[in-house]
């Protein structure tokens, strides 16, 4: 699954580990509004064996296994983001994961992914953009 947390509410590695327990193996934890400090830094997280994607400024994407890249579909005209996501869902190998970002909560995707039996989680960031995490069972 995917879980989003304000980085200011996370005070150290122990908090990160607790949240990673919640997202489970293959899940992604996002720390939004991240700024490195003595309690938490990319180097510290990597040193503890946590996989880190820090490609987006101010956002850390963390996992206990390699974090799938975030496919940015925010600037595509509807329904192209839905089209891309459904194509990606069918191309996933068993166990493979995929993450996408949308201009808003992609409500129409949810019943389709459910009907296709794709493991998924859909949520929104504080800025209102939508996120989808998928895994082929």
């Amino acid at each position: 699954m995917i879980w989003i947390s304000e980085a200011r509410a996370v005070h150290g590695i122990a908090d990160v580990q607790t949240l990673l327990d919640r997202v489970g193996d293959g899940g992604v934890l996002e720390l939004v509004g991240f700024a490195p400090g003595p309690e938490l830094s990319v180097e510290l997280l990597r040193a503890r064996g946590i996989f880190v994607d820090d490609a987006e400024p101010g956002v850390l994407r963390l996992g206990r296994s390699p974090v799938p890249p975030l496919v940015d579909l925010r600037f595509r005209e509807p329904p192209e983001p839905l089209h891309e996501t459904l194509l990606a869902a069918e191309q996933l190998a068993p166990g493979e994961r995929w993450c996408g970002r949308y201009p808003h909560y992609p409500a129409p995707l949810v019943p389709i992914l459910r009907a296709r039996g794709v493991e998924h989680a859909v949520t929104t960031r504080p800025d209102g953009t939508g996120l989808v995490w998928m895994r082929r069972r």
Partner: protein
Amino acid sequence: MSALSMAGLRPEQGPPLSVPLGFFVLGPLSVVVAGLLLVVTGGRDGGSAYSGFSLALVHLTTVGFLMMVMTGALYQMLPVVAGAAVPAPRLGHAVNGLLFAGALALAWGLVASEGKSFLVAFSLVLAALALFLVPAVLAVVRVRAESPTALGLRLALAGLAAVAGLGLTMAWARGTTGYTESWLVWRHAHAHLGLLGWVGLLVAAVSWQVVPMFFLASEVPRAAQRGILGAIVASMIALLAAFFFEFSENALVAAISPGAIAVWVVHPATTLRALAARRRKRRDPSVWFWTLSMALAPIVLVLDALAMWTDEPVFGPLFAFVALWGWAGAVVHGMTTRIVPFLVWLHRCSKWVGLRPNIPSARELYPDRHAALGFFAHVATLVLGVAAIALDLSITWRLLGAGLAATMVIILAGVLGALQRAPAEPR
């Protein structure tokens, strides 16, 4: 820690596809009827703003086309934007049929000046409104409206109830006692409540959602959105007061002004600015429709003022035509070119993406060249209409009628073509 899981907070299913599409089919047919009426009669009394014939054309456009398409769109938008799914959405089929029949009965009553037709129209439209507004209002009062768009949709429902209430009162009066002493004030209050409190509110509220979404345009600042809503609501309240307390002409102008400036100056200016800053500047006929509509809006305001303040009879029909066909009609036509393929793709294509080859994209369902054809027909008809009103010749009225009917046939062909290109529903 703040977890932001949205599971369960938003309805993921709108109404069945047949509900909004039913409105998008019968709505244009009303204008086809208006167009054929002009072709056959050569525009009898068409140049007179308030002849029964002109008012019949106006109501075939307002009740028959604008209200039908906008009601169909609301069935789809209320669940998505306001989080309020309209209960018993299949009642929409009855609403659709009743509104269409009501528009025809009203038009006949106005053309023939026949009291019984007004009472039939009164009954049909009242039944349609009850079947739509009661479930829609029940849906929106159950959820909290947070965004200006959601608030605007709620207020537009109130605007629809208000303009329809005044219209039904007038239809009842025409069907029983005939014209009243307050008819002039009633007419202005009814027309402006419809244009500002129903069409203007809905166009503004919907634009704040769909313009950024479909055109990747920047968002209109929240303060501007709230200001526009506030000004329209002020005019709505004042116009209702004008209706019931028989305002003087100056008081009527004061009642109309805040909403008119918000709808025909501020909203177009902010929308055009947002469209100019869109991220993907591709050739897109639906942007042309929005641009045309927003560019015409200030002209509508000027024509409205000229119609109210001068004795020149040409300004009344020009105001009505440019407002209904140019400003409102263009945006409604433009939105059908985006909403129809989106809905057809969502309902008929999305379930097969990645599973079957050659599933069409939304753009393939309603090709740009078809939308562009509709745009050019719409603009040509706009020019024909202005010429017909200015020249008042039988041939120009007939050409206008042909243009109106042809433009609507293009919309109908677009809707039916999208359905034909999509994979069939499994039986």
